[in-house]
Structures are given as C-alpha cells and as structure tokens.
C-alpha cells in the first residue's frame, strides 16, 4: 500500500537512447504570444519602411530644388489616394519607430524590464504612435487646409 506522505514518482518516458524524454519546457507553439514580440517586429518593420521612405524625401527635396512644375508633380502625387496612404503610413512608421527608440533608451538605462512594465511600455508605444499620427494629420491635413 502506498504511503501518502511519500509522493509517487512520476512515470518516466525513455527514448531510444535511454534518456528521460519528458519535455523540459513548453514548446514555442504553446507560448502565449507576448505583445513585446509584436512590438519588436514592428520596430524593425517600421525602420525598414522609413529606410525606403527616404526615396520619397529625396524626391520631394530634389523637386523643390528643381522647378515649381517638378514640385507640383510631387505635391500632386502625395495628394492622390496612394500618395496619401504612403504618407500616412510613413507618418505612423516614423512616430512608432521614434517612440520605440525611446522605449529602447528606457531599457538601456535599466528601467521597464519587469513583466508588467514591459507590457505597459509596449502598449503605450502602440497607442502613443496612433495618437501622434492622428494629431499630425489633424494639424497638417485638416487644420492647414489652404495653400500657403
């Protein structure tokens, strides 16, 4: 009869080499996807997007330096639905990457690495980037309606 004070030994599963093959840690597939992972990927993706965005900046500056006609073309392109979408995406990428960078500086200084803090920072990063993007577009697109 089993003694209740002595815990029963867990059943062992041996592989062909005679090692106990019980999994030692949860596998990647059953991890809850943490928001910090999404934010890590987004920081890289927005960085790469801004990299390509320099093409637009160079085009805009070169056009401004060339002629009013060339400048008009860029301004026209930016005003098309595709141009507006690109510029809106560029704005969000810039704000997200900037706030993500600040998040990295906070970590570099040794703060915000705890489980609660890092999730709060990640959410603040995402929400902050959306708020700043909308604010910029409210100011730039709707508030400054006319030409100057």
């Amino acid at each position, binding site marked *: 009869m089993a003694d209740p004070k002595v815990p029963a030994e867990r059943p062992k599963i041996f592989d062909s080499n005679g090692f106990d093959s019980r999994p030692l840690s949860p596998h990647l597939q059953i991890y809850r996807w943490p928001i910090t992972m999404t934010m890590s990927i987004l920081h890289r993706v927005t960085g790469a997007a801004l990299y390509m965005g320099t093409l637009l900046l160079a085009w805009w500056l*070169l056009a401004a330096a060339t002629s009013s006609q060339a400048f008009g073309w860029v301004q026209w392109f930016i005003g098309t639905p595709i141009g507006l979408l690109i510029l809106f995406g560029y704005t969000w990428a810039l704000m997200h990457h900037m706030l993500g960078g600040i998040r990295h500086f906070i970590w570099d200084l040794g703060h915000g690495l705890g489980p609660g803090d890092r999730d709060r920072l990640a959410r603040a990063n995402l929400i902050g980037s959306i708020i700043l993007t909308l604010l910029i577009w409210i100011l730039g697109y709707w508030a400054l309606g006319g030409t100057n």
Partner: protein
Amino acid sequence: MNSSLKTPLGRVRGLGSAKSGTQHFWLQRLTGVAMVPLTVAFVLTLIYLARASQATAIATLGSPLIAILFYLFIITGIIHMRAGMQVIIEDYVHDDALKIAAVMANTFFALLMGAACIFALLKLNFGI
C-alpha cells in the same frame, strides 16, 4: 590565474577575435538619441509645408534654423538607417557572399539618398 601574457588592458584594446566592440551599438544609440528632437523639428516643418507652393517650401527650408536642422536630420538619419539595415541584413542573410554584397549595397543606397537630399538642400539654399 591569468594564463595569457597580455594584460587585461591589452586584451581590451585588441578587442578579441571579433576585432570590434560596441561601436555599432553605440553609433545606433547616439544617432537614435539625436533623431528624437530632429524628427520633431522635421515633422513640424512638414506639417507647415503640407500644402505649400515651391516658393514657400524654398523660403521655409532656407531659414537658418530649419535648414540646419534639416541637414542634421538627413545626415544623422542616413547614418542611423544604414546601421539599422546592416543589423537586419546580418540577422537574416546567412550566405557570406550575399551578405557582404547586401551590406555594401546598403551603404551605397544610404550614401546615394544622403547625397541626393544634401544636394537638393544645397541647391535650393544657395543655387539657381
């Protein structure tokens, strides 16, 4: 017990087998810190120029404060993005020849974009 004849300082100066230390990391942080205020200035200027004519754009980008901040934004941004893209390439491109080619192409692209933007600014600031 230190089995090497090198002093600890000598080992640090030699930077070990990797032959490099934290320069890349530090360059990324240094330019990153600078980019925060420069980005704010850049975005505020672009908000102002959202629907500007070419004449307004030239006048605005020609004012000393905005011009200097734009030059700094472009130079700092180009260095920062080159360093960042290099890390992405080194993380995902495992074939040595392809990796070296991609890192070189990254530098060329960064310099091309930097040269284009700086040339444009110089031309609209000082040119005809």
